[in-house]
């Protein structure tokens, strides 16, 4: 069953086509990886799905309803949450209060919001930081906090934008376990990641973007063996050869 799908979704920035007619879908319970060289349009695609950019063409369908061009908070209400590539913490609030902002998405009660927030802080292993202002946390903790915050809004689909960037190897394996734990909670995941080892291990399917277009799609094994993918990542040499 398709949870989220896009049909020929397109975004242009003053003539530059950042994302060009992408068709993709995510099934319920899936971990879906999104890769591509820098500037391939991954984050742009993310921003269109989560409502930060209005697409110039195409549709986003979530749970059989069109959500194209809805504002981010409305999309969040429908059960689609995201994290940011560059963390955006509420610096002066404590870790618990940060997660409570997410928890208030589903409840108006202070007690319930606190319980939900405590649950997800515990879930990502940050209970001990609950009373600390988050600007004092390490980048690794802040990334996990962003996950807790997004999860507290009770999504069915979680969009993770490079949650492992800048983390130590220990933290990476911790976040990998977390992502699997999230899926066990029947939350599907769409993730952008540059750490290939982690992505290959976690993903059920992977989509490769290149210059805003779909280059390949398939299971991790298929992607690894795809010559076009290798070319996209190491392709500068070949391009040089063409010009000669």
């Amino acid at each position: 069953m398709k949870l989220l799908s896009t049909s020929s979704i397109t975004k242009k920035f003053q003539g530059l086509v950042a994302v060009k007619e992408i068709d993709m879908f995510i099934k319920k319970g899936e971990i879906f990886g999104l890769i591509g060289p820098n500037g391939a349009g991954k984050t742009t695609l993310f921003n269109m799905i989560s409502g930060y950019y209005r697409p110039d063409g195409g549709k986003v369908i979530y749970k059989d309803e069109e959500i194209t061009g809805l504002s981010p908070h409305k999309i969040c209400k429908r059960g689609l949450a995201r994290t940011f590539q560059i963390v955006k913490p509420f610096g002066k609030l404590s870790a618990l209060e940060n997660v409570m902002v997410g928890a208030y998405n589903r409840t108006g009660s202070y007690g319930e919001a606190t319980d939900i927030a405590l649950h997800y802080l515990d879930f990502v292993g940050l209970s001990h930081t609950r009373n600390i202002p988050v600007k004092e946390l390490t980048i690794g903790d802040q990334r996990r906090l962003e996950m807790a915050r997004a999860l507290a809004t009770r999504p069915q689909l979680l969009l993770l934008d490079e949650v492992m960037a800048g983390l130590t190897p220990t933290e990476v394996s911790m976040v990998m376990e977390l992502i699997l734990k999230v899926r066990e909670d029947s939350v599907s995941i769409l993730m952008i990641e540059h750490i290939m080892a982690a992505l290959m291990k976690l993903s059920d399917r992977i989509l490769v973007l290149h210059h805003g277009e779909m280059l390949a799609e398939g299971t991790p094994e298929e992607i690894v063996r795809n010559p076009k993918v290798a070319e996209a990542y190491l392709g500068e040499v070949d391009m040089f050869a063409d010009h000669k």
Partner: protein
Amino acid sequence: MGHTKSIFRSKFNMLYFGLFFGLILVALPWGLNTYYLNLVIMAIFGAYLSQCWNVMSGYAGQFSFGHAVFFGLGAYTSTVLFVDFGVSPWVGMIIGSIVACLVGLLIGYLSFRYHLKGHYFALATLAFAEIFRVIFTNWPFVKGSMGILLPLTGKPTQMQFENKVYYYYLILIITVLLTGFLKYISKTRLGLYFIAIRENEDAADALGVDILHYKLIALGISAALTALAGTFYAQYFYYIDPHLVFGSEVSINAIIPAIIGGVGTVWGPIIGSLVLMPISELTRTLLADYSGMNLMVYGLILMIVIIYLPEGVMGFIQNHFPTKKHIDIELQTGKEDIESETPLN
């Protein structure tokens, strides 16, 4: 166990402290002569005005440089209704609030809808305040730049008191109520959403916060409450004119106590006003022989404070004496705080 007990003790102490402090506030005016009573009233008035500003600009982070709009509308609405139509300012005050709130929502909708943020939003509010000042200066119906002199009736039903003590109680009560309200909401969805919007709009949006909606709520509350201060001002001084109530001085007076005390904190505007009032009064009386000197010294002190206390007095206190400034979760769940436990040996 020891932990629970200490919480209980501190709550108990807080209660006594609150009662003691409350009694002082109630008894205070009876021991003061008119000069000092006036000073105290002006200090609380400044605290209230700044607290109103704090709701929208401190908590929700939408920096306003034009709170004079709401102040002036409150003052003019109740005064015109009182002078021309015989409506009691107690009623006029409410109507003034509603008018200011509606105008605030309109300004807010226009600005926020088109994503005016930060400095640009502040400039827009300043522009609106100037527009209103110019309109009222040239509007014969409200007597233009001549201003309006309120008739002296001395009747409490018309919000006039022969004994200034009652003005003191009036402004004290609304200040306490507003501060209590801020203290209360800082734990609720409303308060956390305000702060979340201030700290990071995009992140708040991603977590389901309707940014426009909550910004307008903050602005609406702030505008309505600021209008009350306008009515109070008119009833206290018996005279208003466009410059006095729509001038940029009003907007600045709403901002400075909060900045000195600590923007976005419950006690900041109050502490700021209580610190500033004696400074401003002392410089004024001590330097009375040198015209304009008091303002120079006052300005100098402001600069020093801003350089050395960039987060205000409250920021200084929180940075140097960190206490439980965040929601203390132990109170709700009864869980022991492992980090704060002392080792057994």
